[in-house]
């Protein structure tokens, strides 16, 4: 691990926690009836604690007039004239929504919004319930776009906190970072917000400042967070990562701060694990391998969770540095598990070759080294031929597996999925809402593709660099092993006395590995292998 890769890893970790994955909270928006405000009336009345949307029939213009036929909405056609809608439509749509029929509510709500003036007292409520209906139907991006509109227009202070809460819940999933994180939470006037939402917005705005390198401004936001809030802990983590980027030699204080965060119960388990990994990486860089190992032990995985391949590989390197070759080889066995088969880990082959070489098993060492060039032959060929690396399956998959590229890829995937899902509602939404949403998804998808492609191009380049570095070291290794293979054994040399076999303690149990991987064993593999090295001077 170089310090550059360390910083990159920590940065990606910080970005990972930035959209604050919630701990086991189910997004409120996903359940139409149960998550609807408890005291919400069934017809046209607002959620509990909020001011009632005024009866639409009384306020809407053109009340009682017959609805005119709207011109067919086409993708290139000019926007159609607003269709006249019976104001009772709003009440009925609301009733449908609270009756658990978001599919029936969405079309009429949209039609009502098209007809009603933006100054209508219920306009924001209409947008809100349309958004909730769409989210309930699995069209989260479309729902988020209406919620973001509410946040930007701020026409109704009663609706705004609910819209922001729902938006906040949506940030746990792949989402439009520009529309939600930057344009809503990153740009909110924070004075009027409820505490929870306000804390999240402060955190997001601080994060935006940190990303542009303005730590002082970020601190003014972070200082407003309550010490007991999860956002405060996340902010601390982001600050530490930023500071780490600025210093050449990380201080003990930074490490102990990360250590404290790894035990901070306010953080999600994922964030705590990231903090523990940061400690392990920093200690590794300082050659405190035993300390690094202790930090890896702090990483707690959910039961039967396979964990992350990078965690295992880092632990394997640490054990290798500690001279625990057999334990390191055991962890490499873990990385051959089906869960990690698609992981891009060129280092894995190199480390295996190094261990075999250190144990003087030269043929396996050579084979392990060759395995890298064999396995990544296509990718190496593509690099050498200066082909478009984004078209290389392995490099592309590796680039899409972490960091901002992963987020962009997931968002694109979500858009594609929701775009397909939208087709199912063509009949029930009506032409206008359907064509509007189709256009929205097409545009969003085009933008998501652009963002993803830009990030992908940079990310595959980094992955190709990693691969090339590993390939280069493997060639050196092959050469070295080749020399060792044909080295003459001097007279009087003898095989090194085999290491005492690790005896099981009474509290331990051993399961012989026969190629079948069990998730609960992934961190427990140990290899029994004799050294074939010879002592030159007995």
């Amino acid at each position, binding site marked *: 691990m170089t310090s550059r890769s360390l910083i990159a890893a920590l940065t990606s970790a910080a970005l990972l926690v930035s959209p604050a994955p919630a701990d086991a909270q189910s997004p409120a928006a996903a359940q139409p009836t149960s998550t609807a405000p408890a005291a919400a009336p069934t017809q046209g009345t607002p959620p509990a604690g909020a001011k009632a949307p005024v009866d639409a029939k009384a306020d809407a213009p053109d009340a009682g007039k017959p609805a005119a036929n709207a011109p067919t909405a086409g993708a290139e056609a000019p926007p159609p004239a607003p269709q006249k809608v019976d104001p009772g439509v709003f009440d009925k749509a609301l009733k449908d929504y609270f009756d658990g029929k978001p599919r029936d509510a969405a079309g009429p709500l949209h039609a009502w919004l098209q007809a009603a003036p933006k100054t209508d007292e219920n306009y924001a409520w209409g947008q809100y319930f349309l958004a909730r209906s769409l989210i309930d139907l699995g069209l989260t991006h479309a729902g988020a776009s209406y919620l973001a509109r509410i946040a930007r227009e701020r026409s109704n202070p009663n609706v705004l906190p609910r819209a922001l809460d729902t938006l906040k819940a949506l940030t746990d999933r792949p989402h439009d970072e520009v529309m939600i994180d930057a344009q809503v939470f990153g740009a909110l006037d924070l004075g009027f917000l409820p505490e929870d939402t306000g804390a999240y917005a402060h955190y997001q705005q601080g994060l935006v400042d940190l990303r542009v390198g303005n730590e002082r401004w970020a601190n003014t936001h972070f200082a407003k967070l309550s010490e007991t809030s999860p956002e405060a802990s996340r902010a601390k983590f982001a600050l530490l990562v930023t500071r780490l980027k600025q210093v050449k030699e990380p201080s003990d204080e930074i490490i102990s701060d990360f250590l404290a965060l790894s035990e901070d119960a306010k953080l999600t388990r994922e964030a705590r694990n990231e903090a523990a990994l940061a400690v392990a990486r920093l200690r590794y860089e300082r050659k405190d391998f035993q300390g690094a190992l202790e930090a890896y032990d702090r990483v707690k995985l959910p039961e039967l969770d396979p964990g992350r391949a990078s965690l295992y590989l880092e632990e394997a390197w640490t054990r290798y540095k500690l001279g625990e070759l057999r334990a390191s080889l*055991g962890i490499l066995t873990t990385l051959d598990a089906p869960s990690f088969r698609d992981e891009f880990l060129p280092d894995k082959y190199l480390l295996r070759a190094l261990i075999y070489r250190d144990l003087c098993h030269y043929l396996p060492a050579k084979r392990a080294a060759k395995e890298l060039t064999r396995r990544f032959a296509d990718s190496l060929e593509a690099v050498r031929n200066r082909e478009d690396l984004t078209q290389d399956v392995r490099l592309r998959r590796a680039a899409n597996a972490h960091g901002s590229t992963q987020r962009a890829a997931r968002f694109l995937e979500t858009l594609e999925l929701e775009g397909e899902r939208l087709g199912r509602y063509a009949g029930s939404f009506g032409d206008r809402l359907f064509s509007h949403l189709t256009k929205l998804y097409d545009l969003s998808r085009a933008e998501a593709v652009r963002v993803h492609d830009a990030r992908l191009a940079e990310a595959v380049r980094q992955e190709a660099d990693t691969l090339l570095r590993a390939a280069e070291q493997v060639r050196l290794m092959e050469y070295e092993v080749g020399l060792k293979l044909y080295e003459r054994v001097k007279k009087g040399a003898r095989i090194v006395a085999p290491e005492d076999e690790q005896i099981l303690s*009474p*509290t331990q*149990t051993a*399961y*012989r590995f026969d190629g079948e991987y069990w998730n609960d064993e992934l961190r*427990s*593999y*140990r*290899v029994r292998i004799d050294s074939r090295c010879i002592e030159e001077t007995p």
Partner: protein
Amino acid sequence: MRYALLILLLLTPGLVRAQAEALENPGAVSAIQERRFRMHHELLLGVGVLPANAYYKGLVGTVGYTYHFTDTFAWQIGRGTYSYNLQTSLRRQLERDFNTSPNAAAFQDQVQWMVGSDLIWSPLYGKMAFLNESVLHIEAFLLGGGTVVKLDRDGGFRPAVNVGLGLRLFTGKTLSLRLDVTNNTVFTGATRVIQVPLIQLGTAFNFGATE
């Protein structure tokens, strides 16, 4: 000599292949884990049946205490079983149609209760995947010991030898489910023995196990 050479010649490819395999894939891999479930003081509450006797079926309730010396060896210091007996239709028919006396010798083998003690050896400890969703830990054991059986007759105390096997399914650090299938060989007379098999399902509470 010629045979020896021939045998050596035949063995050579196998030996070479084994060595090549060891050269190419050296080492043996094991998953070494802390034993997840360990027993110490075990209190057993069980229910079961005495199914074998043709003249009655016993519904039993058992209380037992076991001390576990190690993960593989334990002493079931005491167990007491009470049997609630139900007469079978055969016995009723014999009494009704053939005027067999209720005090007939064959009917006096009914077990009223029994107490005993056993040694337990648990050589098997393993795990199973349940629907590929969760891991279940189990233990299989053999037990053997002595029993004093009270039969349904005057002065009905009889000695017995108890042997059996069992299966334990761990559901937590302090709770496990235990299935025992045992057989008491009861010495009812100088030359007469009867077999009293018992199938029993129990809940075992575990106290004081070190983590």
